[in-house]
Structures are given as structure tokens and as C-alpha cells.
């Protein structure tokens, strides 16, 4: 699965020499400074590094919430680095499933309504979306909570709903930002088990930004950033791999 010579069809997301610079007054902050990396189908990749190393910047770019200053970002072989705002919205809506540290459910909506949000923006709300929402809610163990409001659920339950929501649009990959950062260790383990379970059954690809070595230990690979550059790519089993290996 992690064989570098595998078929290029298996590369679902790819950075090619991506830069993201911020102008701060007279200073140019190189938040990302020439990052190349690949995400393969079925990958479980964590992005790690010290604070300020560029993890959030990278996550925003991967999630099409932001555009690189230079460089290419390919999703499913298509360069999305310079798409319009609307086109990027479509990419987010169809190809990416977001999972956030603070769950980010919409408080005034029920669980069911929250689950339907991604499909609503695709114009796909209806009997199908209800069925799917119910199926996924069952899948994460919250089939009986469809009518509840987020604040009536525990943190772990909210994150389960968020995971179900991220799966609603059958994304190419899940993009998680410290998905267990707000949870106690028991709940963290449950959520990590759920990720493993989803991966095993659905072959979903996961990219997760984290500080947490426990989380990183569950993944296949860890991409380490330092000062906006790839420091190392570590295969689970702790063999260090040279950055930019695909070139």
C-alpha cells in the first residue's frame, strides 16, 4: 500500500513544490516553503511538527480552504491550486470530509439536519440523504439520536456525529484536525477505534494533523514539518524516510 512505485491512480492528493507565504508588514512569512508530498488511496497519514511549523497552513491547503502562493495541488489528478472560490467550494463539498478538533456541529440543527448539510449544498437533500444519514448515524452508534441537538450529546458523541457528517459526501479523503484533542483518553481511544473501523470496512483515506504520538502511532505514516518544510516522512515502525521521496 505504501510502495512508492505504486500506480499513479492511487495518488489521490499531491503537493508539488507548494509555497504559502504571508506578507506581515515588511516581513514575508514562509508558512510553507516548497512542500512536496503525496497521499495515496487508503493512506492513514498524520502531519506532525512543532507549533508554528506550518501544520495548520498545510491542512487549510489540503482542505481547499486556502490557495497556495505557488506550486500545484492535485486532487484526483486535477490541479485545484488556482480554482475560483465557487469551484473550490465544490471540491470541498464533493471530495473532502472535514473533522475538527472542536467538533463544529451547527448548534441549532438536529443531528439529522447536521448530517444533511454537506449534501444540501450539492442539491442532494431528500429521501436518499435521510437514508444515508440514518445509515451513517447507525454506523457511528448514534442511530437513536437523530433528533437531538449537538449540545445534548457528549463530546465523544458529537465527534462521532462529525465523523458521520464527514462521510456523507463519500469523500476522497477525510481531513482531521486534532480530532481527539478535546477528548479524554478513553473517548480518544474510542474515536481512534472508530477511525480504524471505518478504514478497515470502507477503505477510507485519512489525513490527520496532530501533536499526539498516541494518535500518530495508529497511522501508517507521519509527515514531519519544520519551518514550513518537510523534515522527514516516517513510516510506522519508525524507519525514517527522506522527504520528497516521490521525485
Amino acid at each position, binding site marked *: 500500500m505504501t510502495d512508492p512505485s505504486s500506480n499513479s491512480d492511487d495518488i489521490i492528493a499531491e503537493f508539488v513544490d507548494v509555497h504559502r507565504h504571508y506578507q506581515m508588514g515588511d516581513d514575508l512569512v514562509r508558512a510553507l516553503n516548497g512542500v512536496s508530498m503525496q497521499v495515496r488511496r487508503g493512506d492513514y497519514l498524520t502531519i506532525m511538527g512543532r507549533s508554528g511549523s506550518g501544520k495548520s497552513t498545510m491542512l487549510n491547503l489540503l482542505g481547499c480552504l486556502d490557495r497556495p502562493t505557488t506550486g500545484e495541488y492535485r486532487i484526483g489528478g486535477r490541479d485545484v491550486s488556482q480554482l475560483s472560490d465557487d469551484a473550490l467550494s465544490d471540491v470541498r463539498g464533493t471530495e473532502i470530509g472535514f473533522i475538527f478538533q472542536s467538533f463544529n456541529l451547527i*448548534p441549532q440543527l438536529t443531528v439529522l439536519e447536521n448530517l444533511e448539510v454537506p449534501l444540501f449544498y450539492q442539491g442532494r437533500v431528500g429521501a436518499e440523504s435521510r437514508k444515508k444519514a440514518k445509515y451513517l448515524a447507525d454506523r457511528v452508534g448514534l442511530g437513536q439520536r437523530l433528533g437531538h441537538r449537538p449540545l445534548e450529546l457528549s463530546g465523544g458523541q458529537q465527534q462521532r456525529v462529525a465523523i458521520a457528517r464527514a462521510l456523507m459526501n463519500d469523500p476522497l479523503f477525510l481531513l482531521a484536525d486534532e480530532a481527539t484533542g478535546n477528548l479524554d483518553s478513553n473517548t480518544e481511544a474510542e474515536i481512534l477505534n472508530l477511525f480504524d473501523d471505518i478504514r478497515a470496512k470502507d477503505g477510507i483515506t485519512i489525513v490527520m494533523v496532530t501533536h499526539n504520538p498516541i494518535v500518530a502511532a495508529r497511522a501508517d505514516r507521519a509527515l514531519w514539518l519544520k519551518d514550513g518544510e518537510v523534515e522527514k516522512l516516517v513510516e510506522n515502525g519508525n524507519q525514517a524516510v527522506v522527504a520528497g521521496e516521490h521525485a
Partner: protein
Amino acid sequence: MIRDGWRIVRLGLKSLLVHKLRSSLTTAGILFGVASVIAMLAVGEGAKREALERFRDMGVSNLIARSKRPAETQSSSEQSSWTALAYGLLYSEADLIQASIPSAVVVRIREIKRPMMRGEYFHTSIIVGTEPKFLGVTNMEVREGRWLASIDNKRLANVCVLGATLARILFPLENPMDQTVLVAGNDRYRVVGILREQGRTAGAGSTPYDECMFVPINTSRRRFGEQVTTRSGGSFSRERIELNEVKVQMPSSDDVPDGASILRDLLDENHKNQSDVVVTVPLELLRQEEESKRMFNIVLAVIASISLLVGGIGIMNVMLATVTERTREIGIRRALGAKKKHIIQQFLVEAGVLSALGGLVGVTVGIALPQLITYWFDQTTHTLPQHVLLAFGISAGVGLVFGIYPAWRAANMDPVDALRHE
């Protein structure tokens, strides 16, 4: 599409219900705006109709010259009570008017106040001596029998036509047709016709025509003459009047200004010193009334618009607060695939729902309010459906207009910043 629209509205309502008090207060702003627009338009329309009615009763293509007792000669008539005070319009003047305005219909009117009796029923009212043309000029109708004919005038016939009210008073139980009415004790008039109820204020002086008796003018002149003697206390006062009123009907209301100036010039010559003839031009009064009502209506509309504007600012305020509070939600929705247009749509719909709710309740209050105004202040009001639609339309428009900027702000937030927002 419709289902999606309904979903947006339903979820918009849900978001508004998160802050029930705030939403209802904002709604109240629009409510008062809409209600006051409707109520004020209804008051304006009511006043306009009332005025129109009044002047239309007098006839918009008519000119009315009326004799008036000159005020300053009151004391001189006191001194020599046996010399008759002569004033007012003359037969010769009526002829002159007719000659000067050949296209006009000129109607002479003599009014005499007399007690009238029929059996045990008794009423003091005005006997209007006039010509057959009177009916057409005043636009009145005969309910039963016939109107006065030229032959009656020629023969000085003792016939009369009764106003509807007078007929009811003198003949409460029997049909007045062909019966006789006794005037001032010894003069008998045969009833040849009864007029349809007019329900107008226009009449002989302050007496509505409904309450008058109509006789041929020549009969009136022969029976009652031109001298009137009134006894008040111990003294008599004597007056000499040929005609109390001359109605001049122009072919159309377009001819009224010309006719009015001819009539005024003509009468001014004879009545310059004594102000004993008053010319009334209903059309002029109507125009004046319309002019002043227009100003009145503009003032009302401005006041009402200001209250709607205030309501609109309230909506903008609340929507700006909502957008700020829900920055995170906007970021989430953007991450889940919402385009800018979806965000704009969402907040515009919320603003629209807010103002439409206010508008709906406002319409209800606005329809009820004029009735209360009529009840409490005895002010005629009239609510037009198009005014209600207008007010509701404005309220919805206000919601959209004042919702645009907050929605635009929401849509143009950077998704990354919005997601980071606490």
C-alpha cells in the same frame, strides 16, 4: 427547488428562534412600521374620499351663487324696521348669467321657510321654488310619481314634490301621492312626486334637500312674494330677496374655470359693495382639498416610512450581530461545500423571514387600526387592498435591503478565519 427553498426558510426560522426575544423585538419594529403605513394611508384615503363625496354632491361641473344677508347692515335694518332690506340675487341677473354663458344650464332657486302640515303631522322646513332643470343639475332622482314640469310653472300649479325625509315625516303611514300638504295654514299643495333619498349634506342652506318640499318657482313667487317678514321678540324685520340661489351647470368640469370667472365678474359688478352674494365653485374646493390632502398624505407617508426605516435598521443591526455570532457556523458551512451564494441566501432569507413575520402581523394590526381610529376619533378611514400589499411589499423589501449588507459580510468572510473564530 421548492423543497430546498422551504428547507432554507424552515432552518432560518429555527436560527431566529434561538434568540426569541431579540427576534420578536426586531419583528416588532417592522410590525409597527407596516401597521402605521397601512393605518396612515387608510386615514389619508378616508379623508380624501370624504372630501370628494362632499364636493361631488355639489356637482363638480356646477357653479353656485348664493344670496347672503349682509352682516354690516343688520343695525340699519333695526332702526327702520318697516323698510325692507333688499339683497341677493335678482331674476335679471339670472337672465344675464344665462345670456353670458349660453352653454350653461342656469337654475333659479327661491327658498322659503314655512310650517307644513298633514293631518296631525307637522314639520317646519324649506319650500324650494325651482325649475324643472333643477333635477338634472343637482343629479337627483324621482322615486315615485313625477318631477315638476314646465306646465306647472306656467299654470302656477299648486303641486309639490317631497324630499324622502319630509315625505316620511308628513306621511308616516300613508302613501303621499296625490295627497295634499297644508303650508302655513291655508295653502294646499298636491303631492305629484317623491324624490329618492339623497343622503347628502347639500341642500337649501343647512337643510338637506331630502327634507325639503319642491314647488314650481312661479307658484312660489306668486304665493310668497319677495318680501319676507320675520318677527323676533317685539320687532319685525323685513327682507326682500328675489332668488336665494342660482345654480349654473357647465357642460363639463373643463369649462368650470371659464364659467367661474365670467360669473364672478358679472356678480362683482352688482354686489361689489355689499358682500351679499357668495360664489362657490365645488371643483375649486375639491382641488384645494386634494392639494391639502396631498401634503397631508405626503407627511403621513414620510412618518410611516421613517418607522419602517427604523425597523429596517433594527433588522440590519440584528443581522450584523447574528453574522458575527455565527462566524464559526459560516466557516463550517463553507468547509462543508457552501458557496458564497448559499451563505448570502441563508442570511437574506433569515432577514426576509424576520421582516415578513413583522409584515404579516403588521398587516393584521394595520387593518384593525383604522377601524379603531374610526371608532375613537370619528375619523373616516378607508383601507385599500393595494395599500396593504404596498406596506407588506415594503416590509419584505426593507428586510432584503437591510439584510444584504450583513449577508454580504457573512459570505465574504475568509473560511479559514471564520473557522478559527471563537
